[in-house]
């Protein structure tokens, strides 16, 4: 299953706080798609995923100051 989390308009650390709380509710193997526009999150979210052992299955720029990252719960 894939779940979407929209965090546009929120500055750090809120996109990461939302992502942490959203992934708690997912089952192993589910994916969380996080859309964000906070520049610092381009560093913070991939680092959090790596340190938590969640594989990143997609990470792309959606437009000017707009990104999407997909993290799989493990």
């Amino acid at each position, binding site marked *: 299953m894939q779940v979407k989390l929209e965090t546009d308009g929120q*500055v750090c650390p809120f996109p990461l706080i*939302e992502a942490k709380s959203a992934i708690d509710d997912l089952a192993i193997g589910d994916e969380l798609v996080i859309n964000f526009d906070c*520049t*610092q999150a381009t560093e913070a979210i*991939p680092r959090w995923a*790596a340190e938590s052992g969640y594989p990143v299955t997609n990470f*792309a720029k959606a437009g*000017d100051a707009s990104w999407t*990252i997909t993290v799989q719960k493990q």
Partner: protein
Amino acid sequence: MLISGLIVGTVLGFVLQRGRFCVTGAFRDLWTTRNSRWFTAFLVIVAVHSVGLFALQALGVITLEAEAFPWLATIVGGFIFGFAIILAGGCATGTYYRAGEGLVGSWFALIMYALFSAIMKTGPLSGFNTSMRGITIDASTIYGSLGISPWVLVAVLVVAVGLAVRHHLSKPKVKIATLPASKSGLAHVLFEKPWGAFGTAAIIGVIATVAWPLSAATGRNDGLGITTPSSKLVSFLVTGDPELVDWGVLLVVGILLGSFIAAKGSGEFRIRVPDATTIIKSIGGGALMGIGAALAGGCTIGNAMVQTAQFSFQGWTALGFMILGTGVAAKLTLMRKRPASTPTSSTSGVSV
């Protein structure tokens, strides 16, 4: 040569934006995630700057001035400032460079910060500010009170920060996902590649050191500073007195410019309007930031990076109370139990 202020500011703004260097995050993470990676990077700046500063003094290039320690204003101001940067979503420099990225919330915070620092320094609250800062104890620097060479403290700091950096770098490497590259060569390094925290910090430490002689050459015997220049910028805008435009004023204008160039060049500039709650928090946070920084005698740059590098009591006391203020604000706002989120529906903001 006032123009060097604009150049240093532009470089600094560029580096802050590309390095995603957020001092508020560095202080906050100590409390929220118990992570000291960014705080260690922050201390790298102080250590590099401290070595540079005392070397410049030893070479006779600059003369560091010592003033009595306004302990009460530093404690109260540092705490208010630390609290405020959580509300505003960034410290003084953070707010400048996020404003350059197009974050409208930071525009509000920046305007209020500059306005309230002017109100405190030269406006109706200047009497209050002066009397608070008039409460002093006759001690200026830590090494002066201990009766030792500043180099002893520089050495202690360098070793401690070196050990902290080693601790962070020796952690097992994790593979961090990166965005696919669309540029190559220098453009890739400058406008695309993620910069490491410690490398960015070392560059900022060098910029902070270089700032001293350049600023002193224009008659402003000081390093990087944000609060007084912001206050002078406001005074200049309302009086038109060109005398107010000094090296520091051009520095802060440069930060805005540099971060805009960095954001624009890397496709990270977009006008982003937050919700009403965030705007109100930015306004309140910005105002308190101006009040706190004026009282404390500096922000995360002027106090926590420049005064600390000089080992003044004001710098280290302000740093301690800023971190404390950040902790209290983080406990009150970020670490509160959030209502159970419903990830399938949009939690906030506008869908892309």
